[in-house]
């Protein structure tokens, strides 16, 4: 298939599946909290709605940075789709994309001039300090498989079995990272309801639409990387079942866990990172 068509196809799939999984998550959370909850399609409709809403720009916004940042977030996650399902490239590139995304999250908050955005911007730096160590999971994967290339990791697992059994603590670290990116998560300090919608508060219309598309693609990509790197070669149905299962599990966690305050959130994440890195290294030495 033509490369451009392949990219477009995968981006569309990532966006639609990511949106539906977010919708499913909200539905499951609602049912656990004995509410009827919105339809599964709600998140997707919500995203599309913003493209027909009027776009307005705050007087305090830092132009043109304020506009560029939303498109940049979209471009970053489209790049993740290219590095992931399309070319099955290096995990190191994916790490770079994730780190960039944290910077963009920070800048989206500061560019609007809103006090809520600014608080979210500070929290984004805070959370980066915890989430980037969690991404050190890549080092553990490299030490185990001697490669960073996704296709080689898939081949390694086809021969040696899923990595989730050999480096389970590394899988736990990545799971905490995924949990941190989910809406209503105990670690979602950048978008906590105490600061309205965090860095998204002052983004309206098309710009908000771009941010929401990026979030859906990001969710799909994080789940895709987890399943590919820790479970191994999967068919389309396997990916779908895995993504639904993880999203439902995360919905359970989110619905029964309050949002942690920033200090506690960071400390819990760093504790997980520490246990994950040290524990994995000890396990690798012992086994």
């Amino acid at each position, binding site marked *: 298939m033509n490369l451009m068509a*392949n990219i477009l*196809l*995968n981006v*569309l*799939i990532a966006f*639609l*599946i990511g949106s*539906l999984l977010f919708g499913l998550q909200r539905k499951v959370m609602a049912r656990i909290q004995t509410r*009827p*909850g*919105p*339809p*599964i*399609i709600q998140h*997707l*409709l919500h995203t599309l709605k913003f493209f027909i809403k009027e776009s307005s720009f705050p007087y305090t916004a830092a132009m043109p940075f304020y506009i560029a940042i939303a498109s940049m977030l979209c471009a970053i996650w489209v790049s993740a789709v290219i590095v992931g399902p399309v070319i099955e490239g290096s995990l190191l590139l994916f790490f770079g994309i994730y780190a960039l995304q944290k910077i963009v999250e920070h800048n989206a908050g500061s560019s609007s001039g809103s006090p809520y955005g600014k608080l979210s911007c500070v929290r984004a730096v805070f959370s980066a300090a915890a989430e980037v160590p969690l991404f050190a999971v890549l080092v553990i994967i490299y030490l185990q498989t001697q490669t960073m290339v996704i296709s080689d990791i898939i081949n390694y697992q086809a021969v040696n079995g899923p990595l989730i059994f050999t480096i389970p603590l590394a899988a736990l670290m990545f799971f905490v990272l995924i949990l941190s990116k989910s809406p209503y998560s105990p670690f979602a300090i950048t978008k906590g309801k105490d600061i309205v919608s965090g860095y998204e508060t002052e983004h309206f219309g098309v710009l908000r639409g771009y941010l929401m598309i990026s979030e859906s693609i990001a969710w799909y990509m994080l789940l895709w990387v987890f399943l590919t790197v820790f479970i191994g070669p999967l068919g*389309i149905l396997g990916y779908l079942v895995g993504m639904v299962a993880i999203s439902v599990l995360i919905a359970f966690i989110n619905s029964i866990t309050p949002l942690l305050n920033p200090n506690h959130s960071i400390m819990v994440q760093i504790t997980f990172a520490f246990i994950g890195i040290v524990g994995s290294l000890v396990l690798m030495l012992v086994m």
Partner: protein
Amino acid sequence: MDEITYLIYIISFVLGSVLGLLLSYKKYNQPFVTKKIDPVALIISIAGWFLVLNSALLFFLPSFVSISLGLFLVALVLGMRPGYGRYETVFGILISAVVWLALTII
């Protein structure tokens, strides 16, 4: 090619959900309080789940056509306004799963 089929399935599910949501708001004026089963929704749900799970039985249709159609019908009921379509979906899954299990075991 696999991915194109996958995209068609997703789009079919999305369109079914949107249509289900629109039609259900026209059909049901009240929130879900009476908890009655709607026979039309039940038939649609059973047909949809049957097409999704037992597409191999319909040899005269390519499987991707029957699954796409099935997902559209499944989403039509599953995507109805909050509360509605819940029991119909459970019955649809159960009946189709029993048929699938019976045919697979036999």
